[in-house]
């Protein structure tokens, strides 16, 4: 499958990160891996946009970070979604799904 174009729609990056973190605490590398795997390698997050986004989300209080030990035994910064982050994720997911549904129904119009 082709990679989707790299410029993600505005606002979707935050949503992807929140979604990735909703299941587990992850560090930056794992977040990008997980998104790549789940999207069948169609979405890839470059570090250039990933880290600013992580720090932005942290300063908004949607995620929080803590230093821990990675699987390989190295110290790494793990991110975790907060309660406010979950709420945001819920709202934004609903928003996005209804938008996508609307878009696709328009685009599939005969």
């Amino acid at each position, binding site marked *: 499958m082709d990679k989707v174009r790299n410029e993600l729609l505005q606002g979707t990056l935050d949503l992807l990160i929140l979604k990735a973190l909703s299941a587990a605490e992850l560090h930056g590398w794992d977040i990008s891996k997980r998104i790549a795997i789940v999207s069948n390698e169609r979405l890839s997050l470059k*570090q250039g946009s990933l880290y600013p986004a992580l720090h*932005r989300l942290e300063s908004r209080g949607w995620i929080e970070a803590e230093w821990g030990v990675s699987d390989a035994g190295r110290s790494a910064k793990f991110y975790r979604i907060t309660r406010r982050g979950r709420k945001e994720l819920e709202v934004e997911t609903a928003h996005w799904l209804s938008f996508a549904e609307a878009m696709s129904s328009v685009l599939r119009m005969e």
Partner: protein
Amino acid sequence: MNAERLRWLKTKCRRLFRRDQQEKALDAELQFHLDHLVAQFRADGISERDARLAAQREFGAEASAYREEIRDTWRPPELADLWRSLRFAMRSLARSPGFTVLAVITLALGVGVNTAMFSALNSIILRPLPYRDTAQLEEIFRTTAQEPRGKISVADYVDLQSQMDGYGAIAAFTRADASLAEPGQPAEFVESVRISANLFDLLGVPPQVGRDFQAGEVREGSDHVLIISSRCWQKRFGGASDIIGRVVRINGQPNEIIGVLPPTFNDWRFLGWVDVFRPLGLTGEESADRKPQLLQLIGRRAGTSAQAAGYIARFGERLAKDFPADNAGSTWETVSLEEDKVGNSPKSVFGMLIGLSGFVLIIACSNLANLLLARTMARAREFAVRSALGASRRQLLRPLVVESLVLALAGGVGAVLVAMWATDWLSAASTGDNGEAVPFMLDWRVLAWAFVASLGTAVAFGLAPALFAMRLDLNGTLKSGARGATAGRGHQRFRSVLIGGQFALAMILLTGAGLFIRGLDDLNNRRAGWQSDQMIRGTILLPAATYPGATEINAFQRLALERLRALPGVASASVSYTMPFLGFAGARRYVVEGREIPKAGQEPTADINGVSPRYFETVGTRLLAGRVFDAHDTPDAPRVFIISETMARGLFGKENALGHRLARVGGDTMEWGQIVGVAADTRSIFPDPHPVTFQLYQPMAQEPRPYNEIAVRTAGATSAALVDAIRTTMTALNPDLPVRDLQPADRRIARRNYQLGVLSNMLNGFAVLGLALASLGIYGVIARTMRNAPVSLRFGSRSVRGFGISLTWFNGEGEAGRGRCGGGFARSFWDHALAELALPKHAAQRSASVGRGHAFAHRGRARRLLFAGAPRGTDQPDRCLARGVD
């Protein structure tokens, strides 16, 4: 607040304050990612070196860019923005230094004057008295129809003390000025208060050094002990450490200093500037006397204020019933000391001053609004472009608000400087003859006032024009290509109202200042029945210990006058109870011989003065008929009187008053005295109207009093050398007899009204400041808009018409176009204010014409001020101004 939020806040703080730590963490995080990238490339079978290079390539190129982006997220966005707007505001203010300086000066002056007034209010009225639990302290008065706040007799005080279980504690005091002399030195006059032994204990301020009075020391004989104020200790004794136990002479008697009060007790608001406290020194005889009301009482109540008042009132009723001869018709009342500490008159004066300084502030505000408006209009294109590019309302307003904040801050600092300078001046100007300075403190309350006032002013008046900017017609402004805005009618009207309003306020201030100056001049230049030039006067108090009776006093006075008259340069000298410009020494009732005696209390009343021979020639009061008193009018000679012109006319009409006989009512026997002369009426320099118009003189020798006014008429001009010579002469007679306030009479007169002088200077300051600000405002606005000729001309004529209209509006007589601001509102306002201050009534009545005159004079000045300063080539608006006003 949950744990999550707390952690978030902690993160925020770390990001703000622990930057180096954050940087390291970021490095580690990115390194971690890089290592994983390398590992991934390695897994694809690339050599270690190539993998590392590839990872660097993918990672590195834009690393610094997104690092910066990351750092941006650490900074709170508001702060980052604020800093940017602040820099922007500074730059844009610096680009127009003229505007900035004008705005800051306007704010500093407007708010500064207001702050100075607040500072005075704060130190005089708001600051609590320096005693313990001042809310419990009360003054106790004996109220009669004549004296709403009467004093209390010693016997009544003794009774109250023995029956006061329900009330709390009571202390008594009475003013008794004294002379103080250190061994081997001439005496000086000191402010002295005699007190009951428990006063300091009751107030909760014990002496700082030494001990308090003991109960036994209140009795006469054991009362030769002193407690001095900290001020007296520093000023007179240089703060000597061995002060306790020193013996000084008080009224010629040796007294031991046993204590010094702490500096906090220097507060003048309750007792005044007291130097020396002495025990009451009561004789057994005095303690049983209900006649002379000598004492003032202060109490610390135990119960509620209502209970205390009830207790005191019931005590008064009992007294009135038990001793009807002395106490019938009197009631007793309590007044909270904290409420009463400065009395009502300063409160109303301060109310007026704060109000008037508020006028100045309003003028400053409208100035600022005008300046900002003009500035906003000049930048209309900039706003239009920015909003066309998508700037939100918030983004458009923000720089304006921030600019206002910067101005407010600078203005606030300026205001504090102005206030400091103004209070220094006020303090110096209101310092009394003996260094009685009112301290003005610049405490946090005053600083807060200055900054809140300038902040409020700047933000409120910065926003008004900004809101006008919001309503700009975007399209029109962009298309017109004009540098300024083609301003709408709305803001033109707004500007007219502002300028008109501020000029109207300035006119009110000017009118008031004019009235005040006239009133004060009237007072200071009043020479009604006396001549104060070429006169030196002073006060002596002959202590009863040395001069117990008439014989001693008469002998001393005769000797003193002989010596004074012998001084070179002295034309004549006299002693009297009082000086005509200071009023008379109380009123007495008289009956005329051979006429029906009126009902008790209905007899003709006259102000009295006891005078020595040559008094009339010394003070310059004309004798209209008969003779003056001479050396033959001794205590043994028949009684004689001289009455005033009005009294003679009032009692005898066209009949000759000379030869008639009068007697004073109230004595044990009627002692008739013959009228031997008629003198011209005199009036004191004091503004308060006096109900008694009859004046009566009696020979000092026939009823000598210990309190004497010495007057010396000089042959030439008064001089300091002569003042010294008089002082030396008096000291030689008795070293324990200081002459108080010995100085030329004219200076004394000016000093007596100096507080009015300070007030008048302040009003003048307000007026000049108000006018200057208003002129500055118009100048600033015209100068700004003048670059764009057609607009400015229209603007000029409009605002000037507004000015004329506003004047008309204040006129009250409704003659359109003939703005006379002396009328209507301003007049009634000032009549009211002058009545409040009890300035001479005739001055107030003249207010209309005077006010009008001043308004016109100052209007001319305003115009001159305006156009001397206006940019060249503005004769067009001048014509407009003329049209608008006349």
